[in-house]
């Protein structure tokens, strides 16, 4: 039961009406439940921001650290105890902005953990300022005349940095999201899933995208499958969310490789 993983006394969730975070949390907990993982052998680490509050609501072990550092916390947690199932939850501020350096190195280092970055295109918790994924021309609290920078295509960054599993979904297509998270969990090594999610309170309001249902429609309308995107031009893809699996390959993870070093020095003896 997914309820087993939800801390009842902390409900209802503090997220705004129309926020996608609850959908993503459900998809994660469904996957944990399906695998029969226990609270004891699961750790959820979070950063700071709206999505960084996700650990408040779970009954598993959790680690709520600092802004952008969830991945290095997870790295230590997992490497020190390889038997743990470690989920790292980050927003776009955590994941690619203040924590961008950790993200690319985590992708390269390939520690066996799942990283889920919810991208709502702005800093929701602090009132809707621009982040590293805010698109050009978008209005935010700190780009009142339209954003002059470009946003990251995060999946391309993580893919280029060498992650063996990279995917993007949206909170509109929950069935696909559930599958992507499932595949990420089953993939050994660093698995990254970006989830496009609406922030009607800030990004939506600032950019006149309408209320929560309209914003969901906006995500749907701008979503393009990876297959379809293959035949589209750069200009046609501007402002679109390309979904699907971008990378899925076998690659020895850090823990396995390091254990081989230990074994070679100690003839297989393990503490």
């Amino acid at each position, binding site marked *: 039961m997914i309820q087993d993983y939800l801390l009842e006394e902390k409900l209802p969730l503090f997220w705004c009406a129309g926020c996608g975070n609850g959908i993503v949390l459900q998809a994660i907990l469904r996957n944990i439940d399906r695998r029969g993982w226990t609270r*004891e052998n699961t750790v959820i680490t979070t950063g700071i921001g709206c999505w960084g509050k996700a650990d408040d609501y779970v009954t598993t072990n959790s680690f*709520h650290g600092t802004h952008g550092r969830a991945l290095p916390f997870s790295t230590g947690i997992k490497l020190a105890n390889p038997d743990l199932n470690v989920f790292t939850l980050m927003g776009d501020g955590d994941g690619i902005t203040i924590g961008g350096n950790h993200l690319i190195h985590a992708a390269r280092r390939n520690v066996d953990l799942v990283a889920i970055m919810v991208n709502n295109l702005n800093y929701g918790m602090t009132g809707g300022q621009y982040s590293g994924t805010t698109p050009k021309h978008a209005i935010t609290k700190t780009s009142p005349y339209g954003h002059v920078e470009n946003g990251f295509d995060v999946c391309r960054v993580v893919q280029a940095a060498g992650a063996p599993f990279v995917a993007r979904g949206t909170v509109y297509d929950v069935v696909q999201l559930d599958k992507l998270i499932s595949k990420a969990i089953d993939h050994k090594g660093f698995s990254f899933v970006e989830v496009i999610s609406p922030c009607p309170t800030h990004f939506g309001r600032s950019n006149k995208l309408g209320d929560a249902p309209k914003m969901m429609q906006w995500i749907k309308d701008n979503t393009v499958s990876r297959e379809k995107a293959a035949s589209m031009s750069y200009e046609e893809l501007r402002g679109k969310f390309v979904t699907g699996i971008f990378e899925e390959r076998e690659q020895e993870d850090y823990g396995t490789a390091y254990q081989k070093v230990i074994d070679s020095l100690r003839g297989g003896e*393990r503490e």
Partner: protein
Amino acid sequence: MGEFRFMQGNEAMTEGAIAAGARFYAGYPITPSSEVAETSSIRLPQVGGLYVQMEDEIGSMAALIGASASGKKAYTATSGPGLSLMAENLGVAVMGEIPCVLIDVQRSGPSTGLATKPAQGDVLQARWGTHGDHSIIVLSPSSVQDCFDLMVTAFNYSEQYRTPVIFLSDEIIGHLREQVILRSPEELEIVERNEPTCDPKEYRPYDHSVGLAPLSHFGSPYVFKVNGSMHDEWGRPCARPDNADRIIRHLSEKIEAHAEEIAITRKYNMDDAEIVLICYGGAARSALSAMKKAREKGIKAGVLQLVTLWPVPEKDLLAAMQTAKAVVVPELNLGQYIGEVAKRNARNIPVRGVNRIDGQPIFPAQILEAIEEEAAK
């Protein structure tokens, strides 16, 4: 018996950490601490431990705390510029009450400063480097033997008091080579984590109503939350004023109330000392030389060496201030600890610093000069 070796301070720190049971290192190499990283990368996998080099000191500190939360004794080594970056997550270790040991081999600053030259400019940063009210334990070695023995103490304190411990070395001691006895396991007293034994449903890692709460580790039957945000007894976020007050007071009191148990000092010729040198770390070596020379000249000089810098070893410091005619505080900075000495100067005796900030060690002759001047008064 132990093993008699000739080695560098930085290398002895690695051996001390491993002897203390540390099995995890996360760090980012920086002069003059890099030998700790290098020797750890060799030694840890030999004993089934793990070395990981992170992308920066921010990530290093985070990985260290994560590993400790997973139950491994963990350490890192850095120097001033790295300590500045580690300050952020040092606060998570403080707030989450997660044990770990952070070695700072001090070099001349600010900023990049003189990367290869000794200094003791991080004494106050070690105490107050991370924001917010808290207390912390800082130990300062003055020999290669200290690098081994005191490292074991650092890990013991960190587990015993559920706190990060800063092992505040300096370039002089980090790079000094001299004899050291690598003590055998039976000679060492090792403090292991106080793990909970209650019903897992009742486990509250931040309920300190009956002494310091036990700390579990991820993967045990005890599920728990670590939280850098203000939290209740369970580790769940909690912004109630009375709870915030409880937590912040606790973070200081759990250490300050035990200051005398944590205090380590060494006294040399203090019985009849009129001129007292109060010193620590690499500068203590200069002070001891100066004391020897002063005694040869018939001046009653003594040394109070502070091995524990924070919390302040009140008792010994106050005792020295009671009997001394004058106090000299040699420091490789412009006077970072002398303020603590001056605060305890009830008799209003002369308290003077001997300070050096040019990247050179304090020469014994400089301290001797100060001793002679005070003795002549």
